């Protein structure tokens, strides 16, 4: 009886069901709590998109002009990029600095649980940010969207974290914690601007629009803008294909880094 218990706790991955759901759940829960309790992460991640939206999408635009709806979508994409890039890029780099990854490897937890926990955390933050933006848009900017459109937008944002998780993961495997902050910011902010997330590409110089398809955030925003019928008219499958390729390649690059 006693040996059984020890065996059960020391090898949780091999329970009767075959998968330790509780391991994944706990890992995800504590990852989320950890980030929520890291003001340097949670505060900007949660408030910046909403603050920016209030400034540019509500206060500085004329009511009823359609800009508030358009910017709700693009600031949503901007919002979900943050937790994914920082949660993976910076947090993973810090984990590595502290030797947490080595410790985890020694612990009897499923190998993928940390990655899945971080992904779930990014999605969780993404949903919260999307919901906050929607509340502001509907409550203060007079944005009118059908419930189906709101649901679809949330779904796009939920799945849209994946390419940025992959990119963040790769950055996190590349550099240490201090450098990761700088690099993620260097990637995150220019990419958002150059993809037309802060202001529409139509009012930016032509050269910015020309090179916008290089950025994953552009493709995600185009998919999201299709929900409100304000995209530039590219094929959905093309945008999805780019995002899938982007996710796969950076995940592959990161896994090569981690195994070497």
């Amino acid at each position: 009886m006693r040996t059984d218990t020890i065996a059960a706790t020391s090898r949780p991955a091999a329970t009767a069901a075959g998968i330790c759901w509780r391991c994944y759940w706990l890992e995800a829960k504590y990852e989320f709590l950890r980030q929520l309790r890291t003001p340097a992460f949670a505060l900007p991640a949660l408030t910046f998109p909403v603050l920016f939206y209030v400034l540019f999408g509500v206060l500085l635009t004329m009511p009823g002009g359609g800009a508030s709806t358009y910017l709700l979508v693009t600031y949503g994409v901007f919002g979900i990029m943050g937790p994914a890039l920082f949660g993976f890029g910076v947090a993973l780099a810090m984990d590595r600095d502290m030797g947490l990854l080595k410790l985890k490897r020694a612990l009897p937890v499923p190998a993928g649980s940390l990655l899945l926990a971080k992904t779930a955390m990014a999605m969780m933050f993404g949903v919260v940010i999307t919901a906050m933006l929607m509340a502001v848009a509907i409550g203060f900017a007079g944005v009118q969207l059908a419930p189906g459109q709101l649901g679809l937008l949330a779904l796009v944002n939920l799945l849209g974290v994946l390419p940025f998780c992959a990119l963040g993961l790769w950055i996190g495997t590349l550099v240490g914690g201090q450098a990761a902050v700088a690099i993620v910011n260097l990637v995150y902010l220019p990419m958002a601007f150059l993809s037309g997330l802060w202001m529409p590409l139509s009012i930016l110089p032509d050269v910015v629009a020309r090179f916008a398809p290089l950025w994953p955030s552009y493709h995600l925003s185009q998919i999201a803008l299709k929900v409100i019928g304000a995209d530039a008219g590219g094929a959905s499958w093309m945008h999805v294909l780019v995002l899938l390729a982007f996710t796969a390649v950076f995940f592959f690059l990161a896994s090569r880094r981690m195994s070497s």
Partner: protein
Amino acid sequence: VKYFPEILAVGALGAVLAVAMHMLDGGRNPHAATGAPPTTGNSFAIRGVRVFDGERVLPMANVVVRDGLVATVGADAGIPDGIDVLDGSGKTLLPGLIDAHTHSWGDARRDALRFGVTTELDMMGDWKRIPALHGEREALARTDAADLWTAGAAVTAPGGHGTQYGMDVPTLAAGGDAGAFVAARVDEGSDYIKLIVEDMGVYEGTRRLPTIAPDQVTAAIAAAHARDRIAVVHASSQANARQAVAAGADGLVHAFQDAVADDAFLAEARAGEVFVVPTLSVIAMIAGAGEGRALADDARLSPWLASRQVDSLQDRFGGPPRAEFLQRALDSVGRLHAAGVAILAGTDAGNPGTAHGASLHGELGLLVRAGLTPVQALAAATSLPAKRFGLADRGRIAPGLRADLLLVEGDPTHDIAATRAIVAIWKNGYAIVRESTAPASAAAAAPAEPVPAGTLVSDFDGDSVDSRYGSGWQATTDAMAGGASTADFALVPGGAMDSRGALEISGEIKAGFAYPWAGAMFLPARQPMRPVDLSQRRTLAFQVRGDGRRYTAMLISGDSMQAMPAMQGFTAGPDWQEVRLPLSGFAGAELGRVRAIAFAAMSPPGAFRFRIDQVEVE
């Protein structure tokens, strides 16, 4: 080798991104952005377009341009793969226009090209630039200026016409050797020889200018012919014109204004095979006919007029208007044309009352007024001047010729004014980017006009869509900013409060643009899109009914029409209802400089239809 998988993965991602960039055309809005050229290189094709080839009309043809030259023209011309293709349905393709009488200095050639005039024939100007001109007009390079042929210095007497412009010009003294004088011009590179026979007798009571003698005219023309140059003559009286024709002149570069061409002159002109460039545009200025101002006010031309062009169009020589001059010239042109004398389109641009480029569109209208058909007028500005001045590489749309082309909306072979509705201009096969000059120069600098005292703008009870002041109503859509929404408006019977009529505005908001809009706007200034001062007014009031949709009233104000409008919403319900919007409620509007008041639908996409009536600014 160690990083081979990484390199492979990054390469694959690069390939996907490259395909995406190509397929998405660089993320740019597919609905033609403003100012963007319709084609990029100097090879392209236009499909299914009406073609006036310089001589004949092809109702439906394909035109292929390769490396700056016209490759094929014809109903069944094949369109090769891999080049830009434009849909020409509803449009007409013309050869680039030739203005056969200009004085082109400064920005003239750039101004000309902006209105589809791809070649100018200068009739007296700086001869030192001639070597550079030759290189430019022979090249097929990308350019933003019309090509130029020039007479260089003209043959005129000391103190005569042509010497008064402050330029130090060579002159032919009384008793001087005309042959040697002309030879010197040919040596300078003059493309043709221009003689000025002008003592101002037609224009002024007593003052007379010195002018060249009849025997000098004869000798100069002979000398030009001896050096294989054609000789053209400025003459403002029938007597001088007759003498020039007798001396063997190839062309007259004005219609004379002291008389209507008599039968004898018609016979002599025909026998001498002379051509006439009547320059009705500049004669209309002398007549005070307001042709220049009408061009400046034409909304199809005004957005591309530089402020110097607007000023020039509204300018006049001093002295009383001489309406009879224009009538005589028009009558003469009609009679000469009927007698079989070649008429060429030329404006004398560079003079008051004209503007390079824009005035040629006015000249075409005047030629039609004189009795030419639209097709003959178009030939007078394309194939005919090319033939008479020996410009072998242009003037027609035919294989091997230079791809100087003009694409216009509508059918100028029936309505000559359609040449003003320019869709695209190509020079040497390269599309010209027409930057609107309005916001930067003329319109921004223009002082705000005061508005008349009455509050009523439009009651829509008349027989056309009009307004008590300003320049009327126009459709406005996001197409000007890259969108695809459509709008139309029309008078309909049955207005508010049992009045006779109302304005119905309908259309469709199309998805695919960040801030779609479509509707109709009132332009309160006499010149479209100029500002007026509404700072003493308080309220925009109007009656409305419609499909129940939410609409937006916009105030466009400030430095340009492109500025973000200030907006207030209203709903168009099933019954007539008065809407009163305080002007102070248009946040951010500059009430001292209001350029337009628009009534428009915005998001969400879909069809819309509403009526307005009794529009007042109180």
